[in-house]
């Protein structure tokens, strides 16, 4: 196969990302294939941060002077943009957090401690990121609820045969939209209605879907949706939780402090309205504004295009990986191109993924190696670790070729035939 050179749109996109023009210490082009860990940032996002800090940096919500007004407006506009990005009905349903992990913890502490009791069950899956697993383990332990897993098969696809059984007594289903270690796209269209049918609510961990495909929380009918800004072209330290208003209204606050209260006396406190009830203390103002700029950028590209671009890159990568199958390259995850998103996990003969990643690094190719924060899945599958390449909107088929060249180098270092 021969890589198609980047077309005009892709070339323009690549030029939007200053880091992609940099060279590594060894003078190599940076082939960044670790966007599932964190994405690179376009210049417009960096500019939004610089503009905030150099022109209207101020604390929000309380200041009546010009830059405080401007900061407040920009912050709340960013909320509205992110809400619109996932088609949330109201921006009051969009809570800024540090990231997906904090969003999930907010639900486990606030909704979870309030609503679960012994005899109840929480249902998740076998391929969750630790951030969507450990909070539920902790919650189950605290409340006496039972934690159950939707199994996945050897290719990391959800096995729904026993879903009815698994759902009995379930109050909350928490699952990732897209798996960060295998790329599996969850069959939410089946699971969510069935969960609702038994009266359970559903939290969707969208850390890997929000960056890579159009998301419509109303069409999904998700009760909660969590994601991280840093994986979707935004700054670090900002993310969000969407929640249906009816649920959020009834939940107690999570963190306590400034901004989440309406009235405080020495004797007690009245809490603020949504969304601020859940935003205690000074938030990541610059981060939120940067995320607003990121969302503008993504919408400018069109999320349908992003998904299609990544899908075609994945097809190209799968085809090229086939060339190394006879020399011990094993690819994990779903075969069906429509059920897998931006991630390929693999192993190459007896070369440990860490060693592979180190060797690829000498060629400027950045991939991830390890358990990808999905230790139980790795253990179940019997993989001590995998190498993972993940693709984003700025990657090209040439990047896949560079990865292939790196694999050839590893083969020669490790004397593979």
């Amino acid at each position, binding site marked *: 196969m021969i890589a198609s050179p980047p077309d005009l749109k892709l070339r323009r996109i690549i030029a939007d990302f200053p880091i992609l023009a940099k060279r590594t210490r060894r003078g190599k082009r940076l082939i960044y294939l670790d966007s599932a860990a964190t994405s690179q940032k376009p210049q417009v996002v960096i500019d939004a941060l610089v503009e905030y800090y150099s022109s209207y940096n101020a604390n929000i919500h309380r200041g009546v002077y010009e830059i405080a007004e401007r900061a*407040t407006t920009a912050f*709340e506009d960013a909320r509205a943009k992110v809400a*619109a990005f996932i088609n949330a009905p109201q921006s009051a349903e969009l809570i800024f957090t540090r990231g997906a992990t904090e969003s999930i913890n907010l639900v486990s502490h606030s909704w979870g401690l309030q609503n679960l009791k012994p005899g109840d069950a929480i249902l998740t899956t076998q391929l969750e990121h630790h951030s969507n697993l450990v909070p539920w383990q902790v919650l189950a332990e605290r409340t006496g609820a039972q934690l159950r897993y939707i199994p996945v098969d050897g290719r990391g696809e959800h096995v729904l045969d026993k879903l009815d059984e698994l759902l009995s007594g379930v109050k909350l289903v928490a699952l990732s939209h897209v798996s960060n270690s295998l790329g599996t796209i969850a069959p939410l269209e089946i699971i969510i209605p069935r969960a609702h049918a038994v009266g359970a609510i559903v939290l969707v961990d969208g850390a890997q879907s929000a960056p890579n495909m159009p998301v419509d929380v109303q069409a999904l009918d998700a009760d909660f949706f969590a994601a991280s800004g840093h994986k979707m072209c935004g700054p670090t330290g900002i993310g969000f939780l969407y929640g249906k208003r009816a649920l959020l209204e009834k939940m107690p606050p999570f963190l306590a402090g400034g901004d989440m209260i309406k009235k405080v006396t020495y004797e007690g406190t009245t809490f*603020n*309205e949504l*969304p601020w009830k859940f935003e205690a203390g000074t938030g990541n103002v610059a981060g939120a504004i940067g995320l607003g700029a990121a969302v503008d950028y993504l919408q400018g590209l069109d999320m349908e295009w992003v998904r299609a671009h990544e899908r075609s890159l994945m097809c190209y990568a799968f085809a090229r990986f086939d060339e190394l199958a006879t020399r011990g390259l094993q690819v994990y995850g779903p075969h069906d191109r429509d059920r897998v998103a931006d991630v390929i996990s693999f192993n190459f003969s007896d070369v440990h993924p860490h060693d592979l990643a180190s060797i690829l690094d000498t060629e400027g190719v950045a991939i991830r190696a390890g358990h990808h924060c999905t230790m139980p899945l790795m253990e179940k599958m019997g993989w001590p670790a995998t190498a993972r390449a993940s693709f984003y909107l700025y990657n090209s088929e040439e990047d896949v070729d560079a990865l292939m060249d790196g694999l050839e180098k590893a083969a020669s270092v490790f004397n593979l035939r």
Partner: protein
Amino acid sequence: MEDFYKEYILDHYRNPRNFGHLDAPDASAEDLNPLCGDEIRMELQVRDGRVLDVRFSGKGCAISQASASMLTQTIKGERLEDIARLSKDVVLENVGIGISPTRMKCAMLGLKVLKSAALGEIASWPDDDPHTASV
């Protein structure tokens, strides 16, 4: 912003109209602006679905107090359902021009409380808009 502090604003601030309490209000509500601590209470005397009399009380900035004071003058004789549907324009017209976004809640607090009294439940901020969380 300068022309914001017109003479009549200061006048309503220092000499609020309809200030105080009714003996036996038929409807009442109170609320505060959590961002600045302004407080307003509205009490209504209602006959045949119309406001016969009104009193307000509270403390806060010139904008919040003057706009509440002016509002009480505007709504006498109005039907409760019309009050519940009042838009923020009535306040903006009363106070004149140039309210910045953050101070909008100061200006709108009186209207919010009045609508809550008329509705018998807590009204949302008059400038609420689904995709722009107001501040």
